[in-house]
């Protein structure tokens, strides 16, 4: 899994590539919490277009990020979810809890 951090209007985009599983979710969690808690970024966009797989540990990291963003009064915005990732979100019944958009343009405009 690779994480590329880039600046965007009003926030930061984390481009994630690869699988978010037990081996790699700690790295995503760390990057996410760094942006939210340490840098206090007002909007953190998580680009999941190139994520092929996410497991329950990845979902747990996203939930932790969401909670941290609520604590900070910031926003965590997801976009570009593949069918596999959407399925897992639906299984978790978390798709309505997260702010999710189809594309980067929609996410940035939100």
């Amino acid at each position, binding site marked *: 899994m690779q994480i590329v951090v880039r600046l965007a209007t009003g926030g930061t985009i984390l481009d994630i590539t690869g*699988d978010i*599983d*037990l*081996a790699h979710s700690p790295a995503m969690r760390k990057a996410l919490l760094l942006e939210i808690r340490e840098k206090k970024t007002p909007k953190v966009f998580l680009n999941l277009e190139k994520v092929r*797989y996410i*497991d*329950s*540990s990845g*979902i*747990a*990291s996203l*939930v*932790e990020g*969401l*909670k941290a963003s609520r604590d900070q009064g910031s926003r965590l915005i997801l976009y570009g979810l593949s*069918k*596999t990732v959407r*399925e*897992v979100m639906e*299984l*978790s*019944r*978390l798709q309505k*809890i997260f702010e999710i958009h189809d594309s980067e343009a929609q996410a940035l405009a939100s």
Partner: protein
Amino acid sequence: MALSPRRATGTQRSSENIISGMGVPVRGGRVAKNRLKGRGKAQQKSEMLLKLELQSNPEALCLVRATIERAAEVLHFRDAETRAIVRSVDEALANVMRHAYGGRPGLPIEMSCHKLQLGDKKAALGGIEILLADKGAPVKPTTLKSRPLDEIRPGGLGLHFIRESMDEVEFSRKKGKNLLRMVKYLSPTPQAAASEGE
């Protein structure tokens, strides 16, 4: 180190398999239950597809997912079913690594996959049976619970994913090993389901 001995091809399930003894069956969804009506387990025949001996290293998970995905495709599972099988195996292995072995790497996990064929010729759709065995801390089947989904908090989802994704899930412990048996049956094609309903 090997899993419980099984005959390789076309044999009925042996009395040593993990259904017997301490097995605690946990059934899957309603559709699966309906599909299984009238098909006793004694009718199932299995054929070994593959056997893996791996270690409790999370880096191995991507390799196992790729292998299981291919096995499900070979058995003609549909895409959504294949994703469900891959998800379940991944979550089950992650649970072994995190909970049974407490995150310690390099400890043994055995996995085998079997092609299931049902004895009932009219509905011989078959399926896949996946067996996992580890030597970690005992898992108490009666205490295994998925967390309530209305709680928004990290963790506790893996078992829920497995139960939602597979038709049969059974935990047991035998001879110092935690054993997990998961089964997914092939769904009938829309045409076959329609003709069955006539």
